[in-house]
């Protein structure tokens, strides 16, 4: 992978996210936000990779990412999402959920709204009050859903002081991540290897569906939904295994792919090219999974360029009766075809890669070695 820029930023990065582009815009991604962790003072920062006047030989703009502004954050930044163009929602290890507002005219960030007791073990009223880290947050304007180590799910609405809906004790273990399936439905993953689907239209506190792995109950750390097909979901586990699920069918994953050697922290489908998937892990690597079918037939996986690694595909259920035309390349389970090409994107092994995000041809990731890597030519 050429042209990947690294910059050391003196803070361990826990989350990186591109600022979403206005719909219909033809620009490429220019700004991203990062959150730090494990410092005495943690920061949420905004960075820009916009042009700084240096033209390279192709006439493109190259250069390091520069810090635009930052703001102090209490507790580790456990998760970070852009709510809209100007607002960022963060989940903190103190159990607090904060909405930051970016002021582009004077390049500052300020706290717009805060729910300080979103997650706790013993309630604010009790004498032994203890907060619980909020582990995941997902937004769908105007709603914000958060999950935490207390097994609680909160539904907030921007500009509402109290939570709109709270599901206490939704899970007896820690909820690690959450994503929207369709607007009133969310999907959570927990530390006993289960996916649970919750429907906010229903009144009860029970999930509408539970899916889990058949073998060991390996904790699942991340989840992402296919951008176009809302029933296809990818999860990453503590053993570095990538699982693809079809939530309409059965309670078991469609395929299990042995991937990293340690916890997989984030998995992302590419928002506009969903045949491409990206994963990053505690073992210090970031992988690009390419399942696009316009690549010529390959007899074996191992001779592809880049730094590919061994990959074992193990399909579980028969999906043979699904029409070929609507099947997602992730769901098709023909291991003999070996259509997935994997490349490792980082130049050398480093400490854990905690987070990544992709938007268009741009990718950003942050590591425990206090470095941020940016590339603007993912598909060259």
């Amino acid at each position, binding site marked *: 992978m050429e042209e990947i820029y690294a910059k050391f930023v003196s803070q361990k990065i826990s989350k990186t996210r591109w600022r979403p582009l206005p719909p219909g815009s033809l620009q490429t991604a220019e700004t991203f936000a990062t959150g730090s962790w494990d410092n005495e003072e943690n920061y949420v920062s905004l960075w820009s990779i916009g042009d700084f006047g240096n033209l390279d030989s192709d006439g493109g703009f190259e250069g390091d990412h520069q810090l635009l502004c930052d703001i102090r954050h209490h507790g580790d930044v456990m998760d970070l999402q852009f709510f809209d163009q100007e607002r960022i929602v963060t989940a903190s290890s103190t159990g607090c959920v904060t909405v930051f507002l970016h002021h582009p005219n004077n390049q500052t960030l300020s706290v717009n709204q805060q729910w300080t007791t979103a997650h706790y073990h013993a309630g604010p009223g009790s004498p032994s009050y203890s907060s619980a*880290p909020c582990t995941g947050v997902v937004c769908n304007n105007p709603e914000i859903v958060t999950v935490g180590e207390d097994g609680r799910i909160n539904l907030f609405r921007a500009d509402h002081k109290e939570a709109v809906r709270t599901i206490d004790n939704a899970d*007896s273990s820690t909820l690690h991540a959450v994503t929207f399936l369709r607007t009133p439905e969310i999907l959570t993953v927990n530390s006993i290897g289960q996916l649970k689907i919750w429907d906010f239209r229903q009144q009860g506190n029970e999930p509408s569906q539970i899916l*889990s792995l058949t073998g060991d109950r390996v904790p699942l750390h991340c989840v992402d939904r296919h951008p176009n097909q809302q029933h296809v979901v990818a999860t990453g586990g503590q053993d570095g295994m990538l699982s693809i699920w079809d939530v309409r069918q059965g309670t078991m994953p469609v395929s299990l792919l042995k991937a990293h050697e*340690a916890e997989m922290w984030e998995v992302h489908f590419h928002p506009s090219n969903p045949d491409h998937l990206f994963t990053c892990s505690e073992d210090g690597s970031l992988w690009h999974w390419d399942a696009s079918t316009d690549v010529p037939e390959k007899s074996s996986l191992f001779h592809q360029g880049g730094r590919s690694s061994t990959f074992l595909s193990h399909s579980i259920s028969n999906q043979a009766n699904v029409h070929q035309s609507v099947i997602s390349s992730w769901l098709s389970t023909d291991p003999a075809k070996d259509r997935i090409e994997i490349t490792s994107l980082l130049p050398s092994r480093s400490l854990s890669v905690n987070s990544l995000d992709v938007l268009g041809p741009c990718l950003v990731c942050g590591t425990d070695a*206090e470095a941020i890597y940016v590339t603007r030519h993912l598909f060259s």
Partner: protein
Amino acid sequence: MVPSCPFIYIIRKDVDVYSQILRKLFNESHGIFLGLQRIDEELTGKSRKSQLVRVSKNYRSVIRACMEEMHQVAIAAKDPASGRQFSSQVSILSAMELIWNLCEILFIEVAPAGHLLLHLLDWVRLHVCEVDSLSADVLGSENPSNHGSFWNLVTILVLQGRLDEARQMLSKEADASPASAGICRIMGDLMRTMPILSPGNTQTLTELELKWQHWHEECERYLQDSTFATNPHLESLLKIMLGDEAALLEQKELLSNWYHFLVTRLLYSNPTVKPIDLHYYAQSSLDLFLGGESSPEPLDNILLAAFEFDIHQVIKECSIALSNWWFVAHLTDLLDHCKLLQSHNLYFGSNMREFLLLEYASGLFAHPSLWQLGVDYFDYCPKLGRVSLELHIERIPLNTEQKALKVLRICEQRQMTEQVRSICKILAMKAVRNNRLGSALSWSIRAKDAAFATLVSDRFLRDYCERGCFSDLDLIDNLGPAMMLSDRLTFLGKYREFHHMYGEKRFADAASLLLSLMTSRIAPRSFWMTLLTDALPLLEQKQVIFSAEQTYELMQCLEDLTSRRPVRGESDIQQLQDEDIETTKVEMLRLALARNLARAIIREGSLEGS
């Protein structure tokens, strides 16, 4: 009464570690360190040396980048105090780079005579940077040769051996004042013809020496002929080029330090100096330069020790002078890879490299964030690294599960099972206290801690007995293979299975499962009453579910249970009431069992269809 001090002092060591800019130094050098350890196993011979030089240059460029950034910050600093602090940091970094560069030339590159001088010249040129700004100043002016600092510039160019540039300057002077054009040209020629070893040149050292001797004599002749007597500047230049010590010492200000003096002196008196002869020149240069007016500073002593090829002394002096272990740890590690350090046995049996790395890594662990770097340094300390890591890693505060997972991953990768167990136990206890039984169970599964799993299961069972229903059914119903971790857990899973079977009206299967739960003794004794009570509805069913054999076993269990009950003495009303309930239950069970037995015997005794 002894007055007590009302203050609590917070002591922190290693203040440097907290600096934002120095953190980049630590992180980048960590990457280089790891790279060095990994390549070391593969390389031998010539490529090894060039790789080691490259690693050294990497370290130096990291120091330089840090210096640059700190310099920018120092300039931009709003208040003078912090500006001064940054500036002093810059000078410390600059000194570190100076020392490292010299060590690279002498110990890693191991330049032979001839090339040695070229490297030393580069070294000096890199570290005395006033030349460039002066040069820009002078050349930028309208009439360079009339500039006040013109001759200073030319002199310093000569002092640094940059004779081509000096010649260009002289040609400007020649253009400006035709009177001295002649002598300028002669001087220019002298400069041009000075023999110097260039990298691509194949001449041997002896050839070079001969040529140089020749050139030197030519210069001498010019001096004796007083060719340059009309221009004192040129005359002093000539003396410099002859290596005249007095002339060199006159230029103390331009030289600015004794090692510059040393290198210039060598350049013009002994360009083919051998490495082992360096220290004679070094010591005398230092003495001459200081002239008895001031005493050597720590930096001077370090450089002197380097010229004497006394590596241990260099490291010792650096350790004393610098406040942070970063420099000595990395330099010593690199020199150790060059196989230059004999293993000095220190008190606790490790060698110097290991000692320094251990100190550095321990310092990193004191920082809330940089402990992750420390782990890798401990990995490469063969004797005491593992033990130190074990001690340090247990003491990292874990405030979120994600951090705990990272720490556990580090321990598991190094097979530190004790630490894994103890950390998981702490986390599991916290979870139980917060009533997160699912989390507690997942931690005990990770640690393969059967005892804790039993504890969690007991909690579940107790809750069931008290409330009549299970909390966290999502967990118990989906235990999967984790059930096998502990007997109690297996029992829990099987018990839920029994509930399911009952719900699906598979009574025969439910009955045999229930029986096996009791007879296999995995059910805790306290729970037997509940199990037997669960058997009641099965016994009361219209059809006979339990066979005679099974009924006998159930009765056996009941007898076991009741016979062991201790005889109660005086008890209060509540206990009497409880006893009453117990006795009623037991009686009901006896009745149901007896009836079932009767029906079973009859059913089994009768012939089919008759």
